[in-house]
């Protein structure tokens, strides 16, 4: 388990003073994947560097399994860092070392014997599905394979916490999916706490149990993914599943935006809604899916001549929240990071 307590990072002094991280407070339990998202300049990379102890926080602390790691001397830090495995962006491999030699790095630094290293490296490469690629150099591997090597290396010293710093950025969708599946598998098998820092909302939806949104160094919103998706007022929920453009309603109908707010939405809610309202309901656009076994979604519908309050209450009885389309706020799109 890893927790941050009032973690603050300030660069510069006086007029030049910039607060990059402002009293961050969150924890990632064993077996949990916690995502931090945010636009570029939000402080994501500084957060990553504070968590893997490459940067000292100005104040506040980083605790791993209850032990405070942020007040250590440089030498103690080197030991403490070994308890946190870091997966970097896909350019983090040594170009002149084979996959096996890259995975062996942390063991080499620690001074593990050659024999033990060989056995551990073989086990790790097998674990990430690269047993046959031990002798390949990074340039002979695909982006996804390189990232698997990075994951194996991060796990070499059996850390309890895994930090993924934009690990899937720059990978194609298929590779991203396979890396995400591997991370979930490792989380389940090894009981890891995974802190997943990214700017990709799609990936967050695939990988995380909980998510926090970092903006200007502060966590502006956080929660369990499913709960955020079921809360129509949540900006982060909307950003995770943005509404796409949809067809416009027939001339005599008004447009409504309907979102799933409970687990008990019947699959035939559209028919039921039309039946109970006694009117025509046309489907203009919809996006419904299951995230972690829970159905979430939203739809734009056109309703001909129904009383607004009646519609809202019928929708509520079906586990939905209905709002006139004009009032539906546009999703806050997080700017992508190069």
């Amino acid at each position, binding site marked *: 388990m890893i927790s941050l307590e009032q973690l603050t990072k300030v660069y510069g002094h006086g007029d030049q003073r910039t607060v990059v991280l402002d009293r961050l407070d969150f924890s990632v339990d064993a077996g949990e994947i916690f995502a931090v998202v945010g636009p570029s300049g939000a402080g994501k990379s500084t957060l990553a*560097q504070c968590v*893997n102890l*490459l940067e000292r926080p100005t104040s506040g602390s980083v605790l791993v399994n209850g032990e405070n790691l942020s007040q250590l001397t440089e030498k103690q830090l*080197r*030991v403490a*860092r*070994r308890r*946190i495995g*870091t997966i*970097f*962006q896909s*350019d*983090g491999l*040594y*170009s*002149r070392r084979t996959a096996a030699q890259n995975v062996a*790095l*942390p063991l*080499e*630094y*620690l001074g593990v014997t050659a024999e033990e290293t060989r056995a551990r490296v073989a086990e790790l490469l097998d674990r990430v599905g690269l047993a046959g690629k031990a002798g390949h*150099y990074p*340039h*002979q591997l695909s982006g996804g394979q390189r990232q698997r090597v990075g994951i194996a*290396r991060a796990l*070499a*010293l059996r850390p309890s916490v895994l930090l993924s710093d934009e690990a899937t950025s720059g990978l194609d969708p298929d590779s991203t999916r396979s890396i995400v599946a591997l991370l979930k598998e490792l989380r389940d098998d090894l009981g890891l706490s995974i802190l997943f820092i990214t700017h990709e909302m799609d990936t967050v939806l695939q990988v995380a149990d909980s998510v926090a949104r970092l903006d200007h160094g502060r966590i502006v919103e956080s929660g369990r993914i499913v709960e955020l998706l079921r809360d129509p007022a949540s900006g982060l929920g909307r950003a995770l599943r943005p509404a796409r453009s949809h067809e416009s309603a027939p001339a005599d109908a008004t447009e409504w935006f309907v979102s799933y707010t409970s687990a008990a939405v019947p699959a035939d809610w559209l028919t039921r809604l039309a039946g109970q309202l006694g009117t025509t309901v046309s489907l203009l656009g919809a996006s419904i899916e299951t995230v972690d076994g829970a159905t979430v979604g939203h739809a734009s519908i056109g309703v001909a001549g129904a009383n607004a309050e009646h519609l809202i209450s019928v929708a509520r009885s079906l586990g939905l929240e209905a709002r006139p389309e004009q009032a539906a706020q546009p999703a806050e799109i997080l700017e992508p990071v190069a």
Partner: protein
Amino acid sequence: MSLPLNNNVPLAEIPALVFPALLDTLIMVGIVMLIVVLVGIPLGALVHNLAQGGLFENPALHTTISWIVSIGRSLPFLILMASIVPFTRFITGTNIGIAAAVVPMAIAGIAFFTRIVENSLRGVPPTLVRVAKASGASPLQIIRTAQLSEALPSIIGGLTINTIAMIEYSAIAGTIGAGGIGYVAVTYGYQRFDNTVMLATIVILVATVASVQLIGDRLVRLTTPHSRTQARLPRASRREASLV
């Protein structure tokens, strides 16, 4: 002025004149390059890591060392050599011969190579240092594995350039009686107008420099997995096919 032909070295005696001189040059450059590598690599790594963003960031010390290196780089070799004669005599007890040439050549070579190493290290992606740190590496382990090892092909490329420059410097040192191929070229070819000897020294110098370049290029290829595996690709893929 006519050239007194009888003063020239007979063709048959030229090998006996130039080959021992070539050996002297090789010994001189060999000793110099050994010193240059032993001092230049640690010094280059130090300068790189004293700079902003380095492992031991220290702007004052970085500026000081950088200035000293720049002074060593900015003096033309002939002037450097002449200006440090007292120092050379203090170290070697003489100011002629190979021993005396090694001192100024090593100083010029170290200054040159320090910059080459520094520049090569700058080409290593900074992520790799972070990877090493996050993997629990000590500063020395970081320098060895994440910096020098990754920059090795580039350093070898620089070393080739540096060695060739030292062959050139050895010829200049030859003018103050350091011996070697440069000395022969100056005394026979230049001062005695012996064109045959001059031509022979030119051929030997060109051949030497070409060989050094060839060996250097080959080493760069061997230390770069990308080009090495490309060259071996047909055999490697055949092996893979047989494994399936």
